[in-house]
């Protein structure tokens, strides 16, 4: 489904990703872990189409198509969804209006009938309950004045509503208390399906107690230095990133 080959990315003069390779298939959950500044958020944003990053080398194929040539909105219409680490506040734009615009743009691209106001509201109410999001949020401007936890839950709610095929969670867990974390984890677990892939980008192992990944990748200094199963996350928790790096250096010498 997603194939990243030798991806090099820079922001300004600073090279952030230095040759990332990753293959993700439908039905799989991948976790990308790494210390701060390793480039994991950059990877998530490049997948979503953030234009502030420049791809200097490599390619990304999504269902065999060149993802890097697609505009952010085309990617969304093709089924890619990134949950933002820092969801943007948009004063004056109502949440309901925004969600309806997004949903209908994506439905149109999938050759589905656009929903009218009544159908839309029914669907939203159904999804919003699952995530314990307050319905009042619909009447407020997008993310405006939301608490950190509300913003993150709102991202998961959008994901549930838009039903993407590839979900990219960009540090959705950071800054959440355990109750909010469980709600987010439930939202992600509910999305697991044989037709869908999920990439969980995180600094901490904590979320992975609730969302068990099939694969774990460690990203350090712009490269994936180690890949493994779910146990790798626990190993990281125990040894820390420094421990893994040391091990790798020792391995390289030996």
């Amino acid at each position, binding site marked *: 489904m997603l194939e990243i080959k030798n991806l090099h990315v820079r922001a300004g003069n600073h090279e952030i990703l230095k040759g990332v390779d990753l293959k993700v298939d439908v039905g799989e959950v991948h976790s990308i872990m790494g210390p701060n500044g390793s480039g994991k958020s950059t990877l998530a944003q490049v997948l*979503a*189409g*953030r*234009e502030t990053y420049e791809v200097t080398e490599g390619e990304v194929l999504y269902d065999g198509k060149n993802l890097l040539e697609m*505009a*952010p*909105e085309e*990617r*969304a*219409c093709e089924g890619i*969804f*990134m949950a*933002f680490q820092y*969801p*943007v*506040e*948009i*004063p*004056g*734009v109502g949440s309901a*209006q*925004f969600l*309806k*615009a*997004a*949903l*209908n*743009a*994506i439905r149109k*691209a999938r050759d589905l009938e656009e929903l009218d106001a009544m159908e839309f509201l029914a669907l939203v109410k159904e999804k919003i309950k699952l995530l314990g999001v307050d319905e009042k949020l619909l009447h407020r*401007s*997008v993310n405006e004045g939301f608490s950190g936890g509300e913003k993150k839950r709102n991202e998961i709610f*959008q994901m549930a509503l*838009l039903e993407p095929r590839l979900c990219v969670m960009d540090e959705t867990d950071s800054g959440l208390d355990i109750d909010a974390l469980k709600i987010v984890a439930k939202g992600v677990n509910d999305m697991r399906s044989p037709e869908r892939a999920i990439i969980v980008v995180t600094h901490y192992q904590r979320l992975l107690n609730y969302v068990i990944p099939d694969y774990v990748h460690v990203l350090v200094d712009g490269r994936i230095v180690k890949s493994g199963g779910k146990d790798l996350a626990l190993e990281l928790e125990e040894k820390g990133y420094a421990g893994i790096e040391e091990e790798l250096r020792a391995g390289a010498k030996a």
Partner: protein
Amino acid sequence: MSVVTQERDYYAEIFADFEKATAGNGQGWLQPVRRAAIARFTELGFPTTRDEDWRFTNVAPLAQIAFQLTSDSRVELTPREIAQFAIPGLGDIQLVFVNGRYAPTLSSTGLPGHGVSVRSLAQAFKDDRDVLEQHLTRYAAYAHDAFIALNTAFMDDGAFVHVPRGRVVEKPIRLLYVSTATADPIATHPRNLIVMDEDSQAVIVEDYVALDADVYFSNVVTEVVVGQNSVLSHYMIERESHQAFSVSTLRLEQGRSSNVTSHRVLLGGALVRNNVHPVLAGEGSECLINGLFMATGSQHMDNFMRVEHASPHCDSRQFYHGILDGRSHGVFSGRIIVHKDAQKTDAKQTNKNLLLSQEAQIDSKPQLEIYADDVKCTHGATIGQIDQDAIFYLRSRGIAEDAARALLLFGFAGETLERMKAEPIRRYLETLVAQWLPEGKLLEEVR
């Protein structure tokens, strides 16, 4: 078009003709006021950019044009011709003016309620002399303002609204000013007087429209007296011709515990000066000064707010948003004056501006003059471009880039529209604003 080199002489001359034409029409008491006003104008002349209050707005192009007075050019319009300006669901209390002159056949004064007067100023000169003498020209001071001086000298029509004590006028009262093409450029000096007695309530909409893209000069003064415990919502929609000069002054005199909201949306005009001047004269009075100005091409829009706190325990809120495209130039001057006795004043001012092009510019100038010592005053101004992070956020959810821009711009404008409580007016303005936006059509799908 003839050119005026000596504007002071020019206006003194046409005043002499004007005085002859209006002599003996029952407004004798006004004569000394008019004369004093034109005398003051000839002393002041039009302001220049050396005047601090006009630093960013050059009215020289206006001063050079030999505008004719409307009285010579009568135009008859049919209801069909003005139907395009109707505000759906607004109600039927409407005074219509064509080139500054009251048009009874286009107007419908409906049934505003017992004892409520809604009529032309020309008629009120005959019928309501007592109220007029008591209030007209008492608040909008011409001594330091050349435009008010001109209006005072040449006023001879406009709207008169009087809501007696305890009356609530539920339906909005609309004053529609229509400008048409004329052989020579004309000047109109509409004068509106709104008197709200104690404990009354009303909604008033001033709407300035143009049938043709012509050059003219509209110089409006609206005086509003809001009695004790009265509630007024005042709206102004400025959609003049893109070649027009539009100067308007809203002077609000607020009594004890009165509550006024002023909403203004400016879309038209080549050179626009929008003066809003509330005086919170009675203790515990409140005002909300809310506005949106949207300029493009080479439009110039100058918003000059002067909020005077003259009594204790008064609250004022100012919110003005500007969207500037093309080579347009916007100005926001917000002065808050807190007089010595106005303790416990709570005054807040916010001006936000979006620049959509490289050449568009904005000057934002907040000013506080505080002579009391126990007050809360804040002001803030922002100038920025469209938030690219927000654009990316919307696009990442499947919304096309142009629709995302339209949503953001509409949202920015919408913050001011949301404060408007009169639903038919707000909805109508939402449509007008969406039409203004380059990508506005896309909003029809998502709204």
